[in-house]
Structure formats: structure tokens, C-alpha cells
């Protein structure tokens, strides 16, 4: 068979398409030019400015707090939901399955608006709590789906075997089911974490005064061109850490 240049060409094109913007961003974060139009020499200046920008670190701290607590909560809730969906079959479970997958396809703007409407109606003041609730809500579907996938490969006779060997129901779950589900739960949690960290649309609706998360902060900073290179520097750091998380997640799923 004749070797074709087409696959290589397409691969190159896709990589260029995906990563060219990131390369521009990273390069510009070291560019002395304020507008990034042309190269005016290497500088660490924007990183120094970023280091001094207290409001950015404050936003990052808020974002991390929400992302960590929301992903922990969705790991617990998602595992429970997946177990219920897997173990029990009924009309109610069919509805459960439909409802829990709905946020996967529902537009973010709709979710944000409906959550805000709910908080207004119930008189809950927007702030950390409301952001956390919103993030748990939209991350739950993803975690549930990942754990459900793991559960479908799980051999339920293993639980019988544990009971047979003297384990109570609770011990069987703790000693056999959970250790085997753990890679899936962790992978789901990582997914939830990354989703939570960069959510803008939903958070925009349900955040309150003093709870500006990092994506909200970046968006508001974009309005002034003065801080544009600082955002480049921040983004470069985010790219590096995202890459790290992605590698970890991949490892986990491969082991799973």
C-alpha cells in the first residue's frame, strides 16, 4: 500500500488548530509589549505584576475552596446516585437516570438562570454557598456517569463472596466495593474539579458581592487593556497546572 501524506497532514492541522492560541498566549506572557502585537523583548514583568495583584489570589483562593468542596461533595453524592441507578431497576430509577443526565445537555445559561430564580424565590443570599450548590448541581451528572461506568464492570457476586466470608453488608461495601470503585470516583472527582474551576456562565448568575471567582475576575479584568498581559501570565500558570491535572486523571483512568 502506498503511504499517504494525508493523515499526517490532518494531525498536524488539528494540533495547530488546538494549540496555536495557547502558544500565542504563553509567548505573549513573556512579551514586553503591552498589546502583544509584536515582540519587544523578554520580560518577567507581567509575572511580577501578577504576584502583586492581591485580588487575583483572593479569587483563586475562593475558586479553589469551591472546586475542592464541590468535587468532594459530588464524589460522595455521585457514587451514591450511581450505586442506586445500578443496583435498583424501577420506573423511578428510569426517571432518576434521565434527570441526572439532563444537566449534561442543558445549556449553562438556563441552569444559571433557573438556579438564581430558585435562590431569589427561597430568599437565599447569593455568595459562597449558592456557588457551591450550583457547582455540585452541574458536576453531579459527570461524576455519576463516570462511576456508573465503573459499576457496570463490577461483578456483584464479589459482594456475595464478601458476605459469604463473614463480612456484614457495610463491611462488604467498605472492603470490596469502595476500593474497586475508588479509581472511578477519583477520576470523576478530578473531572468535577476542573469543571468547577473554570465555570463562568453559571457562577456569573449565582455569585454575590465578595465572591468573585477566578473566571469572573479574569472576565472583568479583560475590560481594561492594562491588565491584559497579567491575564496572559495567569493563563500560562493555569495551562501548566491543568496539564498536570490532566496527566494525573489519565493515569487514574488507565489504572481503573
Amino acid at each position, binding site marked *: 500500500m502506498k503511504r499517504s501524506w494525508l493523515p499526517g497532514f490532518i494531525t498536524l492541522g488539528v494540533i495547530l488548530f488546538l494549540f496555536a492560541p495557547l502558544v500565542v498566549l504563553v509567548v505573549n506572557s513573556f512579551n514586553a509589549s503591552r498589546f502583544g502585537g509584536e515582540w519587544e523583548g523578554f520580560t518577567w514583568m507581567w509575572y511580577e505584576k501578577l504576584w502583586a495583584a492581591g485580588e487575583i489570589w483572593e479569587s483563586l483562593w475562593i475558586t479553589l475552596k469551591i472546586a475542592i468542596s464541590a468535587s468532594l461533595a459530588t464524589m460522595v453524592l455521585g457514587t451514591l446516585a450511581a450505586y442506586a441507578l445500578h443496583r435498583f431497576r424501577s420506573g423511578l430509577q428510569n426517571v432518576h437516570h434521565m434527570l441526572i443526565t439532563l444537566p449534561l445537555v442543558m445549556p449553562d445559561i438556563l441552569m444559571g438562570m433557573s438556579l438564581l430564580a430558585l435562590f431569589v424565590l427561597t430568599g437565599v443570599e447569593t455568595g459562597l454557598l449558592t456557588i457551591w450548590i450550583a457547582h455540585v448541581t452541574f458536576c453531579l451528572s459527570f461524576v455519576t456517569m463516570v462511576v456508573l461506568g465503573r459499576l457496570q464492570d463490577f*461483578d456483584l*457476586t*464479589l459482594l*456475595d*463472596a*464478601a*458476605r*459469604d*466470608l*463473614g*463480612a*456484614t453488608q457495610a*463491611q462488604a461495601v467498605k*472492603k*470490596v466495593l469502595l*476500593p*474497586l470503585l475508588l479509581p472511578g470516583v477519583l477520576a470523576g472527582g478530578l473531572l468535577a474539579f476542573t469543571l468547577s474551576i473554570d465555570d463562568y456562565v453559571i457562577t456569573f448568575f449565582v455569585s454575590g458581592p465578595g465572591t468573585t471567582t477566578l473566571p469572573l475576575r479574569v472576565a472583568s479584568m479583560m475590560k481594561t487593556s492594562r491588565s491584559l498581559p497579567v491575564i496572559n501570565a495567569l493563563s500560562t500558570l493555569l495551562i501548566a497546572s491543568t496539564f498536570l491535572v490532566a496527566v494525573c486523571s489519565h493515569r487514574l483512568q488507565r489504572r481503573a
Partner: protein
Amino acid sequence: MDDFLVIDHVSKTFGTQRAVDSVSLNVVKGEAFSLLGPSGCGKTTLLRMIAGFERPDSGRILVNGQDITALPPEQRPVNTVFQNYALFPHLSVWENVAFGLRMSRRPREEIRSGVDRMLELVRLSEHARKRPAQLSGGQRQRVAIARALVNRPQVLLLDEPLAALDLKLRQHMLMELNTIHEQVGTTFIYVTHDQGEAMSLSSRIAVMNAGRVEQVDSPAHLYETPRTSFVASFIGDANFFTGTAVEFQHEGYVRVFVDGLGSPLVLSNGTVASNQPLRLMVRPEKISLTLARPSSGERVNAFRGVVEDRAYFGTHTRYRIRAGEHSILAQLQRSRFSGGDIDPARGAEVWMSFHPDEGRVVRLEAAS
């Protein structure tokens, strides 16, 4: 009584289906006992009720005099070797075997010596640190057996223990299981659909069909004196004929008129009413083939037929012989020194004969 495992009128219904229908069995201490039957006969449900995974609708299960019917599986003195072994994939072989002892919070030293001794018994000591996925099928099964036996159960349940193994390994594990049973002396209950497995593994077999026990007997008795046509056809091959009893003789012999065959004389192990339709059974290897009519007295049943088919199997040859409307299976053992035997070709006319002791009246239904 030395009945050790007692199953007392146990029934279980799933939806509208009676999976197990008032089954009663007594198993002796230290016995190797088999529940044998086709899939869906209720044997697995019965096993799951003994293990505690299903609760009977009615009836009782006793082990060593203790009523365990209401106990959850973890409190029963019973352990199971599952069909797919159900080894814990995240634990090493050693930890798998130690699982039961750890659950019952035995002292560390006792766990260590117990597990080591058990791994030695199943000859897996050098694989102790491996994960189940790194083992062969036969090794996995030995882990499953060790994991169950280390808890010193009063009864060991084995669910289709050889089904997942290939033919060669199966032969080997068959011997291995018998050796292990001899060494530990625990009561073994096998569940299997394979009559060969049941016959070579156990001292007694309960043949089950449609939720009921058709017959409980030693392998030899089941083969030689099946009480129902189901048992006769499930264990080994059999020729069946329908006829009516026409003459009763001493010691249980009965002459049965079969249309197209004449009136062979056979044994009956139950009472038979005259002029009632009944079924009689002859095993293929009990039929002799001769070219001339056998002359060894009137107590031999003989009839003529034409060979329709012949198949050579190495150890034996099978013939399908037509006699009137009947198609009869006969099997001849081949031996270089036996002489005498004939080997009729297709289309040849032969005489078939069998001794009255080899023919049997069987019931159509299990006794209720």
C-alpha cells in the same frame, strides 16, 4: 441420626415460577454430595438458600442441628466456591485467602499460619503475592477453594466448580478436588449440570428437575436403577420404549408388550399395574449384537433390526438400529482380545439382545 445438613421441605417462588418445590434432603457429615440437574432445575437457588443469599418461602435448613434458615450469609457456618470464583481483584492471593479470618477478627498469628497452611494445601504458596488476574484458571479456582476452606466451614458449597475450565484442566481438577475433600474431610456440596462431574466427585447425587428432587442415590445406583425416565435420560444414554405389562413373574420381573419388539422381560423396582401404559429403559452398552438369534435360553430378550448408522469413537462403536418404528442405540466396547464381537456395516441385519436384569421399568413422573 448422623444427618448433618438437613433441608426440610424448602420452597422458593420467583414471581409465578416455583424455583424450588418442597425439597427435602439429608446430607451426612463429611460426605461429598451433588445437586445435579439441567439449568433452571432449581439447584442453584437451593445452593443460594443454603449459603444465605436467598430466603426460602417455607421450610427449614439445619446444619449440625442448628436452624440457619433465618441467618444472614455472614453468620452461617457455610462457605462457597463461586462459579466464576469471585476472587477480589484488588487483593493479592494471600489477602484473598485471609479475608474471612480477618472478618472474624482472628489474632494476627492465627491468620498467618492458617493462610500459609491453606496455600500449601492447594500448592499455591509461591504465588501468594500475586493478584488473581496473574493466575491461570486452575490456580484461581484453587485460591477460591483455599479462601473458603480456611474458615473451617461445616459445609463447603461449590457452584459449578469446573465449568469455567477447559477440558484437560477439568480432568485434572476433578482428581484434585477429590484429594482436597479427602484431606480436609469437610462436607462438600457440589452443584453441577454435568453428570460426569457429579458421578466422579460425589458419593451421592440428588437429581433435580423442575424444582423437585427426582432421585437421591449413589452414582452407580442412579445409572443402573434409575427410578424415573428423567433420571435415566439425564444420566448416561438410554433407549426408551412404551408398552403395557402383560405378565408378572417372581422377584419383580415383568413381561412388557412393546409394539414392534415383542414382549421383553424386564425388572421393575416398583409396583406395576397390568394393562397400564409404562416405560421401559435399556442402556445402549447393555445391548449385544449378533448375526444369528442368540440361543442362551428364553430369559434373554432378542429382536431383529437393520443397522442405520455406525460411528466409531475409538474406545467404543455406536450403532443406530431400526426395528419397526423403533430406532435403537447400541454401543459395543472394542477390545483386541475379545473376539466374538461383530461389527455390522450399515444396512446389515442383526439381532439385538439384552438380559432381563438390564431392562428397567421407569416412572414418567417423580413421586410426589
